[in-house]
């Protein structure tokens, strides 16, 4: 046991060092690396909900978009009148000083974490009674509705979109913005990972699994499933909101349906990544998101105009050949490496029975 722990330690410290060194090693790829961190966070938080609890949600994009709008609104609203900032015909240009910018984004991210979690609690209370497909369809509607509603609210720019505050001009270093957002997202990634890993070792995960495997039975065992389902979703929302806030600052422009409540892309990607890697595992979403991101960035440009066809093929391949994801596939192939002991005799006996 101690041996494995040491191995883990080497692995984790190796990854952290790689993560810290990455923006210096691949200076030109900082933005893609930031995206990667955010994608992993989204996949991991989706996995908490869809993989561990068995409630397939398409609604996490709601928290992501909410976080994005909240961070930007707070960042602007703390120092300037928000309505004048987003008014497109406005002739006034407001400029954040360096301190204002960082104070704003700090407070903004805090709000972007807490409010989505509260919203998840409230919505969860209302709809987590639904199960299976009903829940999935209901959450699908959430993201779409949010996009349409946000597109009608004038104070956050409505259909015009919302330009987030530009990085302070006083910082002359061109690389500073890239580094800032990278390290922010990397910190979020580590935070999320540590949190999820903590959950993996806790009774909470077992309860979530129990809900996934047989909710009625879990309830009969005396577990207040509703309570745990809501808390589980709130945890997802907390990190999704933060991820959205960071992305908003990085992209620099928030559009209601294409950037914030982007269910068609981000909302589907987070599900896809978790399934690609293997849902219900700790490393699955991480590996899935990484592979997906490399696939997307690498191949996208070589097949201009056909990239979504390629993505469609990828989805089919994943679902047909790796229904349990890469981790699930590996686990089936090499169960002993996952610490599962197989009784050869028993296995053979079962094969014969079939």
């Amino acid at each position, binding site marked *: 046991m101690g041996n494995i722990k040491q191995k883990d330690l080497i692995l984790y410290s190796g990854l952290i060092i790689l993560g810290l060194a990455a923006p210096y*090693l*691949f200076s030109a790829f900082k933005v893609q690396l930031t995206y990667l961190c955010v994608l992993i966070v989204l996949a991991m938080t989706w996995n908490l909900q869809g993989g561990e609890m068995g409630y397939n949600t398409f609604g996490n994009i709601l928290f992501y978009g909410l976080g994005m709008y909240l961070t930007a609104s707070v960042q602007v609203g703390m120092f300037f009148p928000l309505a004048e900032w987003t008014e497109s015909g406005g002739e006034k240009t407001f400029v954040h000083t360096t301190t204002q910018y960082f104070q704003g984004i700090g407070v903004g991210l805090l709000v972007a974490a807490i409010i989505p979690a509260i919203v998840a609690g409230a919505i969860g209370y209302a709809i987590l009674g639904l199960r299976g497909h009903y829940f999935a369809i209901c959450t699908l509607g959430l993201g779409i509705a949010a996009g349409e509603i946000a597109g*009608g609210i004038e104070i956050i720019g409505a259909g015009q979109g919302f330009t987030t505050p530009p990085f302070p001009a006083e910082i002359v270093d061109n690389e500073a913005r890239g580094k800032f957002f990278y390290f922010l997202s990397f910190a979020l990634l580590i935070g999320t990972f540590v949190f999820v890993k903590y959950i993996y070792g806790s009774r909470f995960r077992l309860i979530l699994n129990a809900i996934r495997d047989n909710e009625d039975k879990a309830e009969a065992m005396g577990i207040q499933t509703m309570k745990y389902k809501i808390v589980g979703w709130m945890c997802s929302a907390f990190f999704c909101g933060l991820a959205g806030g960071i992305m908003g600052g990085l992209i620099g422009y928030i559009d209601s349906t294409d950037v914030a409540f982007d269910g068609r892309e981000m909302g589907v990607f987070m599900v896809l990544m978790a399934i690609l890697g293997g849902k219900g595992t700790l490393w699955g979403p991480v590996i899935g998101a990484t592979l997906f991101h490399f696939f997307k960035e690498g191949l996208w440009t070589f097949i201009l105009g056909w990239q979504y066809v390629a993505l469609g093929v990828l989805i089919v391949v994943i679902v047909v050949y790796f229904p349990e994801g890469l981790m699930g596939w590996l686990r089936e192939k090499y169960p002993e490496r996952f610490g599962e002991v197989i009784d050869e005799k028993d296995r053979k006996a079962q094969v014969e029975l079939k």
Partner: protein
Amino acid sequence: MNKLVKLFITSISAITLALVSFTSSFAKVDGEYIVLGSAISLTGKYSSNGVHTQNGYNMAVDRINKMGGVEVQGKKYKFEIIYYDDESNPKRAAQLAERLIKQDGVHYMLGPYSSGLTKAIAPVTEKYKIPMVEANGASRSLFTKGYKYLFAVLSPANQYLEVAIDLAVEKNGGKPVRIAQAFEQDAFSQDVRLGILDAAKRTGSEIIIDDKLPKELNDMAATLAKVKATKPDVLVVSGHTKGALTAIRQISEMKVDVPMLAMTHCDAAKLSKQHGKNSEYALCASQWHKNLSYKDKFFGGGKKYARDFQKEFGYDPPYQSAESSAALLVFKDAFERANSFDRDAVRDALVDTEMQTFYGNIKFGPGGQNVAKPMILFQVRCKGDDCENRVVAPTKWASDKFYHPIPKWSERS
């Protein structure tokens, strides 16, 4: 576990190596080529206009290269463009702008299609101090953010249909009119809407229907039903190509009678070809029309441009293509005046631009918008089954008189 960890570490190092070797950056000026970058919508909801934009860029690059290229410090250079597909998505566009600048080493950018995408790219080009000449981002908010490296060859969006309201008031004997309007939920169309609001305020006109249309625009029957019931004097619709097509299709299906129909993107949607007589009398705002009398030495005049474009791509150039071609002419002019590849020198030269192209006069205002070129209005008119866009305003270029009011469907053959 042991082997798994090893496998993982090996694959990470392999990827690391691959990336490091890939990072070797290209140069802004590569041998005899000046490399420009552009993220363009080849897929997604703006794909048709994205292609119009790309064709416009390509046409100008070919022409300029064929006619001697760009002369900087006594040496001739040719233009080359690196394209990526932004999928009509602002998030993707911002990411690709970063990629063009950081990974492909592009030092000069051409704009994407649509205001929303330009809004997403501008903060990136601004951060890296990359001059961007854009031809398809008309939203007014682009020019009030204090961007220093953004230059637009087109007139701002709020000017698109303001004139149409003035025209309606004039036809109404100077009395205010009742306006029905429906705009797509995007940066450009919403800005057109602001222009209409201004015009309505100025003329004392009343807005009786003010609808928002979704982005994937395929149906506006609800708005049209209201129009049928309330009988406004003017119906204004803006929603890029899909908006124009949907409006005409449903207006003719539902036989909606309205005295005046003002729209955008009629030529990009090839309305007169696709819907023929059903689109007759539609009034359209346009940045450019081939009958205008502007000239330059690369494309000659508008008519010659249209002929050459037709030969090359097989359709009549919409203004989106013309303005995109003009962006390249602006870049060429700026490079030659700057006589240097220094980004700030090029940027300063762009600020001083004052030139005539086949597309119109170009001179940049303090916000980067083109202040030297008016918008024009044309009306779709048919002879038999042959429909054409005829310029009706401003009077300097008008080839036809504005036909008003639109005859009722029951009276149309």
